[in-house]
């Protein structure tokens, strides 16, 4: 270690007194020294099995056990109260005796002195209740004007006894992107690249984050005098200005129409719809009316039922899956607010074939596994780490984890029936004792012992006070529409993984909650914004931007949407066993429906969260399939091809472009393909080849 932890004197004024009087408390003052020195890192003594016979809890989540191991094990040789400097902990850490981890603490450091004084004072634990309640980092949002600029972070800990300490020197700092910002062991941030980064700060089980921004542009780009169409625009454009990134212009009508149709309904605009829309002069009002039509359409219901089914991992078979899907579609169709829908999922019981939402409870057998699904889906939280130890990058403890799981301790499903058992508990793995149910990071009334515990959880979950519930959902919808979440990954929302636009996410979540968790309202709000309607063509430095929404980000069509789009363009529908003719891929109840085509296209299998690339499909296999396989090649006869037989070549080109790309061919495209068709010995084959080409093209496969 070239830079041993230098502990500022100020840190311990309230606790550090001469030996024999009051010693520094172990948990809040001594343990952080060990953490900072790296003693309890996962690769060292913090490993599950310890290291070299000495085990500490990972990053100090279990101070009592750590104190015990330090002072009692090995016949007390680690700590020698009579001869503090002979203590193994000091001799090993300072490299005076052989230590595999090397020297971690210099003898002339403040940390060494403090440890020594604490040992001399009898190595006490201190008050059992004293702990760090939260930490603050300042400044929490910094703009650095260019590269090689610095800002010094200050971290303050607030203790449970009401006092506070400056812990800048002993907190831990990690940059989430050290190609943009690097951070030193003492919290000095240096900009090394351009963009947005965040610095995670950890201390004594608490976490915080600081955002660091380095503008992409050298100078402020001239911003057009735009009237924001929505509060969304205000937030996004302010950040673009701050980061000196120019926004791209508004999309043309064709680009907008295709994007909105695909995003809202998973279908391409029908050619006649496209022609009529493109033939009238551009206006904000005409776009709004399209948005309203789409939001109110039947295909919107199908598409968003699929999106929700992906989220809820609806993957069953036969009658239960039918019941579940029909229920879900009914909820979307009758505009049941999202909070009510989730309440139903969380509390349903009964026969799987009769009570659709009861199927949700079959996601897992174990209450812990089940609670992980619930936390991920509805709170965007990854809590699994806290199953075995305190979460290293979030605030959850093992206690939090098991208390949350306890809501599902009595949930049972067998023989096609979901019910609540009279007894059943979740035990804390350490104490072996049952824990009482408590929501993650909140409080709720302890349920009546006889009642279904899940009802209390559902109340807490969907309460307007629980903004994480609406944030998590809003973030998912945002990601669908923009191709990127305000928080990424959408399943990993935590204080140390801040949004790119915190105020915007907050405003959207509040708006969603205020509008009674109305999915259609949320989508309308976002899609009506100018930001959503920007073109995907880039402008100047904004081509480097992938998180400020300076232009529309192209999205690959999801497998089911791609398959439906091919069917739609060719006029040759797919058939799915067990479904009526004309059923589209988006309308399938469950991925248990056999379809090798959808598999190779990479459909969401609903076994785990789908990020668009899930499943075994995609990649080279998908490319080969699209070139040679049935999805495209079996649809080049019949359907639209027959009706094009007698049209002039130029019209064929125009018709196919309009169907596949929702735009007329540009002159050079028109000339090229018309030439190809006119000169072909077999015009029908050439037209088939043109259709094949369009369906394989980069532009067709993207929503841009």
């Amino acid at each position, binding site marked *: 270690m070239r830079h041993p932890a230098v502990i500022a004197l100020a840190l311990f004024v309230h606790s550090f007194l001469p030996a024999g009087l009051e010693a520094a408390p172990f948990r809040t003052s001594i343990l952080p020294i060990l953490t900072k020195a790296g003693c309890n890192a996962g690769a060292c003594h913090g490993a599950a099995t310890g290291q070299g016979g000495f085990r500490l809890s990972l990053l100090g989540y279990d101070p009592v056990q750590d104190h015990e191991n330090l002072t009692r094990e090995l016949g007390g040789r680690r700590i020698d109260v009579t001869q503090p400097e002979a203590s193994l902990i000091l001799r090993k850490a300072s490299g005076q005796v052989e230590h595999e981890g090397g020297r971690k603490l210099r003898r002339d450091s403040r940390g060494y002195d403090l440890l020594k004084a604490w040992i001399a004072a009898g190595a006490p634990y201190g008050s059992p209740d004293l702990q760090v309640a939260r930490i603050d980092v300042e400044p929490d949002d910094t703009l650095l004007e260019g590269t090689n600029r610095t800002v010094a972070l200050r971290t303050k800990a607030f203790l449970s006894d009401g006092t506070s300490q400056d812990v800048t020197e002993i907190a831990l700092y990690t940059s989430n*992107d050290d190609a943009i910002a690097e951070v030193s062991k003492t919290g000095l941030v240096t900009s090394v690249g351009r963009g947005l980064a965040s610095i995670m700060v950890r201390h004594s089980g608490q976490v915080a984050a600081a955002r660091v921004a380095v503008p992409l542009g050298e100078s402020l780009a001239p911003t057009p005098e735009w009237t924001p169409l929505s509060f969304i625009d205000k937030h996004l454009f302010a950040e673009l200005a701050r980061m000196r990134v120019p926004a791209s212009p508004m999309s043309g009508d064709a680009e907008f129409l295709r994007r909105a149709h695909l995003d809202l309904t998973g279908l391409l605009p029908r050619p006649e719809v496209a022609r009529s829309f493109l033939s009238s002069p551009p206006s904000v009002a005409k776009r709004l009316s399209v948005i309203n039509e789409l939001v109110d359409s039947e295909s919107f219901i199908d598409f968003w039922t699929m999106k929700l089914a992906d989220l809820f991992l609806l993957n069953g*078979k036969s009658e239960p899956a039918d019941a579940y899907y029909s229920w879900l579609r009914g909820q979307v169709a009758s505009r049941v607010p999202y909070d009510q829908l989730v309440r139903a999922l969380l509390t349903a019981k009964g026969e799987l074939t009769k009570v659709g939402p009861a199927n949700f409870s079959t996601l897992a057998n174990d209450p812990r596994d089940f609670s992980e699904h619930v936390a*991920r889906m509805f709170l965007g939280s990854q809590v699994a780490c806290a199953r075995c130890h305190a979460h*290293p990058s979030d605030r959850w403890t093992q206690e939090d984890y098991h208390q949350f799981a306890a809501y599902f301790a009595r949930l049972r499903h067998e023989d096609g029936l979901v019910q609540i058992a009279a007894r059943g508990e979740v035990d804390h793995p350490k104490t072996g004792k049952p824990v009482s149910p408590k929501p993650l990071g909140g409080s709720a009334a302890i349920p009546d012992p006889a009642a279904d515990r899940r009802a209390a959880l559902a109340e807490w979950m969907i309460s307007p006070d629980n903004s994480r519930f609406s944030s998590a959902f809003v973030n998912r919808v945002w990601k669908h529409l923009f191709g*990127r979440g305000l928080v990424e990954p959408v399943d990993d929302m935590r204080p140390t993984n801040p949004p790119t636009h915190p105020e915007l996410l907050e405003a959207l979540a509040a708006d969603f909650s205020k509008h009674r968790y109305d999915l259609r309202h949320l989508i309308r709000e976002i899609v009506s914004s100018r930001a959503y309607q920007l073109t995907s063509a880039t402008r100047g430095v904004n081509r480097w931007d992938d998180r400020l929404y300076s232009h529309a980000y192209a999205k*690959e069509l999801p497998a089911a949407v791609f398959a439906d789009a091919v069917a739609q363009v060719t006029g040759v529908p797919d058939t799915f066993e067990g479904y009526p003719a004309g059923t589209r891929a988006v309308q399938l109840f469950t991925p248990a429906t056999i379809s090798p085509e959808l598999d190779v296209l990479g459909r969401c299998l609903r076994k*785990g969260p789908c990020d668009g690339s899930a499943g075994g499909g995609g990649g080279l296999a998908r490319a*080969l399939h699209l070139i040679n396989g049935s999805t495209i090649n079996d649809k080049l006869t019949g359907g639209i091809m027959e009706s094009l037989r007698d049209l002039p070549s130029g019209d064929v080109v125009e018709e196919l472009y309009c169907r596949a790309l929702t735009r007329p061919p540009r002159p050079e495209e028109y000339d*090229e393909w018309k030439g190809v068709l006119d000169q072909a010995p077999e015009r029908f084959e050439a037209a088939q080849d043109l259709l094949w080409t369009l369906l394989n093209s980069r532009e067709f496969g993207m929503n841009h």
Partner: protein
Amino acid sequence: MNTLPSSPLRRCDGVSRRDFLHLGVLASFGWSVRDLLGLQAAAGVIPATRSAATSCILIWLDGGPSHLDMFDLKPDAPSEVRSQFKAIPTDVAGLHICEHLPRTAAVMKEVALIRSLTHELGNHDTGARFLLTGHRPTPALEHPSLGSLVAHARGFGAAMPPYVAIPGDGVGGNSGAAKSGYLPRAFSAFNVGSDPSRVNGLQSPEGVSFARSDLRRDMLKKMDSFTRGVEQGSGGSRGDRDAFYEQAYRLLASPEAKAAFDLSREKPEVRQRYGSARIGAGCLLARRLVEAGSRFVTVVDTGWDTHQQIFKELPDSRFAGSGKLPSLDRAYAALITDLRERGLLDSTLVVLMGEFGRTPKLNAFGGRDHWPRAGSVCLAGGGVKGGQVIGATDSYGEVPVDRPIGPPDLAFSLLKLLGVDPSRELLTPSGRPMKIMSEGSFIAELI
């Protein structure tokens, strides 16, 4: 009723790709992977060091194979631990393995058996990722699978895809096995689909001649060149798409490469030798692919998560001899001997493993649960010294008592054997230099 999904991101590894400010390394025009290769050059790629092994076949026993019932039997342990299977002698003096692996017992001279694999990640997904990347999964960065690293080091250029995955039965499984992590997605595995005996997409559709296929390809290039202004800077998906099409066309243009995927070109007696089970076809296909120039082929065999009735399921399952062990035994031994007979064993490293071992103590259902603290791995070929056992577990098969080997050590060693320098630095999409392996060391006994 819902089928049980894989655990909901049970992870201190809720990993997903880090958010990078994309520097546009993939936002190039046209169908060229030259840029991907350019990325290598920028990272200061050292040419692969010479070594015996040029290819790898990884047989992945998905679910966690039971070390106590296959390669590390404890005949003297109490009945609640002891396998009901007999230990039989092998062609290596003093080495005994399970009675249901008789063919394998006859090729153990080629095998370095590691009995002391140990780690602490006891669920399928995280355990698999740990083994297949050599990195303990973390939320910070998704590491590439070993196959992607090998593909990346060897590069494209040839008609054969460098990295191929032959999936197991049923959907899902550990698709994480094929992931390219922070490397471009073009280095993820080519998944041959559900039936190894019939790889789709390699033949032109009916009625489409070679000439017409070529014409279509040219039309597609033209079409994409018209729309090159579309979707710039969209986070790499476009660069990936283009790379996949380029790979596809390179493969389609080579009759030899296409033939490699065609199992019907094998004589019936060869197919017979590998067995009729899926893993047999998978191993045979893997041999053909490696022979034709693929660098890393993963054969996934599912069904090893034996929580119940292990002594019936492993050997017999539906009927006598239909279990996992006999199929594996036939396929594995056939692969080793076939490679040897063809002179390919020295250049082909064959790895047999799964995500973890299983609990020494039998559970109430006569099965064994997940046990990452001890497991066995078989390495053969590729210059590995066979006929030896590395490491040992205690008398219950609970923990290694000698020579504990972690997934980083294993990954480090496999990469090294395959001529990939584990200390080499690669670039993440954000331009951050990243050592392939930051921990782990070479298992010296192997060579």
